[in-house]
């Protein structure tokens, strides 16, 4: 980024229908996009709606569309994304209803985690009882490694907002929910495999994925939801072919 004194920030105002409002924000040496939004809300326009919590890349609540790409704003340095003339364009996440300004409604995103059976179902204690002993899961086992690959998802919805299939098919479960399903399919302690695979096998499930890999490209945690979806496709293919489901 060229050294500019101030950033020219265009911020989405309104709901689904709205407009860009223009703000000038002082440029700093070290400055995240979330810092810019916070400056606008605290110093320039207190009516601006946006969402954040942890500010350190753990909670997954501050994601927005920054210069056309979905990003976690608390860990995105302005200098990495700003244009040469200091222009920043901020919109709410795509593929989700807009509550107001930069705050998108994540309810459909998390509803799909439920539809994908994204909740752990203990094999040994279906009634909720505490198992007698710890489950031993060897760290080097294949299934443990597959589960580990996707376990760090923070639910920021960056993948969901970056996915064209979500835009084309409103029912599509999306990369994060399918990544969660794949993580649980590989959890040897889980007893809900059959129902979960049924839940992700329909038209709105893993087979709708076109492997554009935008989810993998944009995931701020460097997870690979595209590979998780491919894993679900693979398991469903062989289970169906061999009559295991």
């Amino acid at each position: 980024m060229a050294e500019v004194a101030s950033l020219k920030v265009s911020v989405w105002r309104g709901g689904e229908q709205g407009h860009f409002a223009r703000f000038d924000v002082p440029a700093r040496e070290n400055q995240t996009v979330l810092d810019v939004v916070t400056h606008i809300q605290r110093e320039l326009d207190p009516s601006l709606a946006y969402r954040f919590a942890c500010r350190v890349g753990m909670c997954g609540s501050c994601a927005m569309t920054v210069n056309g790409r979905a990003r976690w704003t608390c860990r995105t340095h302005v200098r990495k994304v700003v244009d040469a003339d200091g222009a920043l364009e901020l919109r709410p996440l795509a593929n989700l209803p807009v509550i107001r300004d930069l705050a998108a409604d994540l309810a459909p995103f998390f509803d799909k985690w439920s539809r994908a059976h994204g909740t752990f179902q203990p094999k040994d204690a279906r009634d909720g009882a505490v198992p007698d002993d710890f489950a031993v899961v060897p760290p080097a086992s294949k299934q443990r490694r597959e589960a580990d690959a996707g376990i760090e998802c923070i639910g920021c919805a960056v993948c969901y907002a970056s996915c064209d299939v979500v835009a084309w098919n409103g029912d599509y479960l999306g990369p994060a929910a399918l990544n969660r399903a794949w993580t649980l399919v590989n959890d040897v302690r889980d007893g809900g495999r059959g129902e979960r695979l049924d839940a992700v096998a329909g038209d709105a499930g893993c087979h709708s994925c076109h492997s554009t890999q935008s989810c993998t490209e944009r995931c701020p945690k460097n997870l690979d939801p595209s590979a998780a979806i491919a894993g679900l496709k693979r398991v469903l293919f062989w289970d169906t072919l061999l009559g295991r489901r």
Partner: protein
Amino acid sequence: MDLRARSHPTYLAFVVHRVSGLLLALFLPVHFWVLGTAIQGEARLDGFLRWTDNPMAKAAETLLVVLLAAHLAGGLRVLALEFLGWRARQKDMVAASAGIALLVGLVFLLNVV
């Protein structure tokens, strides 16, 4: 459509795979029509094949071969991702698919010109 969100190699590979598939599907009826002329007599087919010796037809033919190779290589890449779980080095695989397609086109061009 905002291209800023879609400007990465695997998205481009997806577009190439789709578009090449569609263009090949459009070519198929022409291909069958040409084969059909053989039924109506050798002279008619030979006449058409002589017409295809013109440079424009050769260029279109080369493009067709590239499309076919791109669709095949891209399809193998997706199959490797989905059936073998080859998750690493996806961008290299996209580059290799593109390289194979262009190489096949070049070999075809060297043989026909």
